[in-house]
Every structure is written in structure tokens, then in C-alpha cells.
């Protein structure tokens, strides 16, 4: 089998996976059309997108960002203010604001990102969450714009009550597809290679001529802009936002949890993680109606993942499959030469300085 063949087969497999993914996203709200089910889908798709967007910076570049709640909240408030200007009966028009909000957030965030990216590893984690707290404090205090702790109400959309959640679901689904697309483009381009180099050894990468500052900034800005887009749709969906929920310190932790669970640094890992965690979380919230229980469940799940599945579901599963396949092959050819067993993939190192 030539390399070219393998590559085109791989590309075809990828395209098939992408088509299947979009098809599933498109039919899901028709298969599960109860209100609570679609609501659950909206949130699961949103978390899948948030985790994928986080993965651009946290996974590919290895920068442990903990402040994505800031960008989510910025998007939510931008939407609340924008939709408020459009007024009641705006219908689908607020969705048109979403790309603008993503772009605007990306531009606003860029100078902050430059300062943050001067630090690494633990210091970066600390500073990113500090930015989250800063923006949250602003949202509480600039009452003229944000309504302070009273929050902002958005106009209720005049959608058909029977399928009220559907427009939001499809907005989230489109954003998820865009996010996965961005991740795919990044992974397959020079940018992805550069980010990998930054994650493995930033100083050496810079020494070898990688434009580390530029690629880090790009990953940060893309990640933040996409996160803001999800925040915007979320705000229109729940139609009433307060600083404590829009700027949620937990949001990044949940995204990290999902990315770790599924396998950070992979394309489908964060989505797998979201599919595993998202519905369970919503179920907990409805069944027990108690946020403290899902706090405990998150913590327990997180610790289980880190100690039992440190590489996440997807890398662990594919390694298991590889091993099973080699074992099968070596048995089939009756050649059991241990020196030919393929080496296990080297686990990715975190982005240490």
C-alpha cells in the first residue's frame, strides 16, 4: 500500500466521519423531540463546542486556560445588548449578530491575550482565571450597561411553542460544525504543527524559527471568539442573564474535564467527552435539582479521569485497538517478534516552559 493510497483513504474516512457527524446533528432534534430532550441536546452541543474551542488553546497549544468563562460571558452580554436594541419580535435576526460578536470578541481579547501569553503553565492558568474574575466584576459594576446583579432580559423570540428550542439547537449545531472545522483546519495546517511544537517545547520551537508569539495569539483569539459565539446563542436561548452565570468560573473547568475525558489534543475527544458528561449533568440538574450534587459529581468524575484514564477515552481506545490488531496479526503470521511490536505513541507533554 503506498503512502498516497493510505492518505487518500484516510481523507475519505475523515470526510465520511464528518458527513456522518453532520447528519446525526441534523436528525437528532427530530428523533428526540420532547422539550426536555431538545433542551438537553442544546446544552450538550454547546458543551461539545465549548470544549472543542477550549482545546484549540488548552489542548493543541498546551496552555492551561481557566478563564474562558470571560469570553463566554462577553458573548452573552454582547448578545443581550444587541438583541435588546433589535427589540421584541426580532425572531431570527439576533442570530446574525453571532459572527459579529465572535469577531468583536476576538479583536477585543487580542491585546489581553498578548499580556497573558507572556506567562506559561501554572502562571498562565492563574492569570487567565484572574481575567475571568475581572470581567465578572465589571459586569456586576457597570450597571448602566449590564444591569449589574439584576441582570439583563432579552426579548423572547416569537418561535412556535411546539418546536421552540429547534432554532437555538441548529444555531448551536452550526457553531459546533464551524468549531470542529476550525479545529480540523488548524490541525492539518502549519499552524497546528507550530502549536504542537509550542506545546512540546516552546523555547526550542522558537529557536527553530517557529513564530511562537503569533501562533499562540492566533490559537487564543480563535478559541476566545468561538467561545463568545456560543455564549451569544446561549444568552438568546435562556433569555435572561446575570453576571454570576454568564461569567462562570466553572465553565472552563467543565470544558477541561470534557477535553481530558475524551482526549485532549484529539479532534473528536472534546465532543466525546461532552456527549458522555453533558446529558448526565443535565439529568442530575433536573432529577435532583441540586447544584451541589453535580459539583460533587464533576469533581469525582474529573479525579477518576485524571487517575484512571489520563490520556482520555479516544487515545486509550485507539491504543487498545492497535494492540488488539497487532496481537491478531502476529498470531495470524505466527511470527512473534517482540522487537517488531510498534511502540506506543508517546503521550503528549503538557506545555511546560
Amino acid at each position, binding site marked *: 500500500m503506498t503512502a498516497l493510497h493510505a492518505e487518500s483513504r484516510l481523507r475519505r474516512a475523515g470526510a465520511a466521519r464528518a458527513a456522518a457527524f453532520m447528519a446525526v446533528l441534523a436528525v437528532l432534534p427530530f428523533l428526540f423531540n420532547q422539550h426536555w430532550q431538545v433542551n438537553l441536546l442544546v446544552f450538550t452541543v454547546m458543551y461539545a463546542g465549548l470544549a472543542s474551542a477550549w482545546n484549540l488553546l488548552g489542548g493543541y497549544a498546551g496552555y492551561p486556560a481557566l478563564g474562558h468563562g470571560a469570553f463566554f460571558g462577553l458573548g452573552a452580554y454582547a448578545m443581550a445588548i444587541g438583541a435588546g436594541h433589535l427589540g421584541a419580535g426580532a425572531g431570527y435576526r439576533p442570530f446574525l449578530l453571532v459572527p459579529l460578536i465572535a469577531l468583536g470578541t476576538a479583536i477585543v481579547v487580542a491585546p489581553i491575550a498578548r499580556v497573558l501569553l507572556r506567562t506559561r*503553565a501554572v502562571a498562565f*492558568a492563574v492569570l487567565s482565571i*484572574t481575567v475571568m*474574575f475581572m470581567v465578572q*466584576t465589571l459586569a456586576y459594576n457597570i450597571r448602566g450597561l449590564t444591569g449589574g446583579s439584576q441582570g439583563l432580559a432579552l426579548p423572547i423570540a416569537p418561535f412556535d411553542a411546539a418546536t421552540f428550542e429547534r432554532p437555538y439547537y441548529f444555531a448551536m449545531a452550526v457553531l459546533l460544525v464551524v468549531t470542529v472545522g476550525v479545529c480540523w483546519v488548524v490541525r492539518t495546517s502549519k499552524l497546528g504543527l507550530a502549536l504542537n511544537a509550542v506545546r512540546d517545547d516552546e523555547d526550542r520551537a522558537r529557536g527553530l524559527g517557529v513564530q511562537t508569539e503569533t501562533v499562540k495569539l492566533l490559537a487564543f483569539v480563535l478559541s476566545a471568539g468561538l467561545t463568545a459565539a456560543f455564549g451569544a446563542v446561549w444568552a438568546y436561548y435562556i433569555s435572561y442573564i446575570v453576571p454570576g452565570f454568564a461569567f462562570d468560573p466553572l465553565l472552563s473547568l467543565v470544558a477541561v474535564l470534557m477535553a481530558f475525558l475524551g482526549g485532549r489534543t484529539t479532534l473528536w475527544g472534546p465532543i466525546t467527552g461532552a456527549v458522555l458528561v453533558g446529558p448526565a449533568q443535565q439529568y442530575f440538574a433536573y432529577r435532583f435539582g441540586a447544584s451541589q450534587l453535580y459539583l460533587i*459529581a464533576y469533581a469525582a468524575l*474529573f479525579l477518576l479521569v*485524571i487517575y484512571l484514564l489520563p490520556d482520555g477515552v479516544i487515545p486509550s481506545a485507539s491504543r487498545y485497538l492497535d494492540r488488539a490488531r497487532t496481537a491478531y496479526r502476529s498470531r495470524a503470521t505466527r511470527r512473534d517478534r517482540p522487537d517488531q511490536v510498534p511502540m506506543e505513541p508517546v503521550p503528549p507533554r*503538557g506545555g511546560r516552559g
Partner: protein
Amino acid sequence: MHLFLQATIAGILIGGVYALLASGQAMIFGVARTVNFAQAIFAILSAYLSYTLFGDLGIDPFLSVLILIPVMFALGYVIYAVLLRPLNKSSAELGLLVLYALAIGIQGVLDFTYQTNIRVIAPAYANYSWTVAGYQIPEVRFFAFLLAVVVLGALHLIRQYTKLGRALRATSQNPVAARLLGVDVDRISAVGMGLGVASAAAAGAAFGMVIPFNGNSQYDLLSKLLSIGVLGGMASMPGTIVAAVILGVVESVVAATISPDWSAFSFLVVLFAVLTVRPQGLFGRQLRGEL
């Protein structure tokens, strides 16, 4: 001017409590090489425990510290031995995430046990204060400050003048060299973590008398602790103490002269401004992540 000085006094008093909490965090940073995102919830946990000891058994909050310190020391020791030690060889961020998850879990347990009502530990002398040359000095804050100074002094003596302290300093300076010289690095690190968490115990009991709290207060406290850590240099004890007192004073003065709403924000702005100029913080060099 009177208002300014009054606010400065209040700021220094609360800054002492922050200094205690933050120096525990600095000690943990030294041995565990990661930022303890659970330090704030440890303080809240001990505030709740002290609240219960006072409410149910009538033990004075300042005396309850004598019970809380060994309990929280054991908790810190166990957390290091069970959760952090297995991670030691992998990246520092992972330890941070584990501690963050732990903080969320503890908050869940606290919210479940105590509900989310705002509490405050209110001993009989809670509202007394002395008047010195026209300035009010609330007794509780003064004793809280005193407690912080005493515990900080004890920590300093342990670090500087005991064999354990020498091992602790060696471990945080260079764990490999310390191990080669015969220090049981794993055990010493667990002890260091225990001491750091124990300082959160003392600070938490004091904090619970001065500021009303619930489980969610951990974020407010955490953002202050992180700011102190960044400004003071994560592993530097003197830097941490100076930064904590500065934070206490800035916060208190802004609250008194401008508005309480902006007190937290003003400090975050200072922090961000400092970092644009000096990414390594005001003190210390370890901040960029060269751990």
C-alpha cells in the same frame, strides 16, 4: 484623612489574615510545585468547622483553631500523599486541575451540608471595638491579626530553625538534590502541604469571624489569593506577606473612599498593570512557569 487612616488600619488587620492564607499557599507551591486552587475552600471549610464547633459545642473560635490545625494538617498530608504524589512526574498543570476539582467537590459537600445561606461566626465580642486616638479597632479583627502573626511566626521558626524546616527549604529549592542528600522528599512534601493547609485552617477560622461567607465565597477569596501569589512571587514568603498586606490596604481604602464595588477590581487592575511590565511579579523569578 481620618477616613483614609481608618481604612488603612482595617486593611492591615485583614491583610494579616490574607498573609497567613497566602503564605500557606506559597509553602504548598514550594513543595508541590503547583498553585493550590483549593486553598480558599480549605479556609472556608475550616470557617464552617469553626462555626459548628462554636454553635454546637460553644468552643470559642480562637480556641477551635487548636483543634482545626491538626485536623487540616492531616487533610493536607493525605491529599498530597494520595492525590498529588502519583502526579509528581507529569506536568504541574495537572496538579492544579486536580486541586481545582477538589475545591469544587469540597464546595459541593459544604453546600450540601450547610446549605448556601451566608454565615458568620459571631462570638460575644464580635461587635466590640477599642478606640485608640480616635480610630476604631474592632476586637475580632485585632485578634484575628494577632492569630495570623502568631501562626506566621511559628511557621517561620519551623522553616528556619528546625531540621524539618531545612528539609522543607531544600525540597522546595531542588527536590532532586534534596533526595540525593538523604531527604525523604515525598514525606517532607506531604508535611509541607499539611502545614500549608493547616495555615488555611487558622486563617479560615479568623476569616469566618470577620467576613460573612458561604461555599461560593471561595472564588472571591481565591481571586485575592491568586493575585497575592502573582504579585508576591509564588514561592516567596516575604513577597507573599508584603503583597497580602498591600492587597488588604488597597482593598480597604478603595472600599472606604470610592466604593466597595470597585475594591476587588482595583487590585486586579494593579496586578494586570504590574504583569505587563514585570511578567515575573514584583518579587521572585519563578512565575513564568520555569518550575
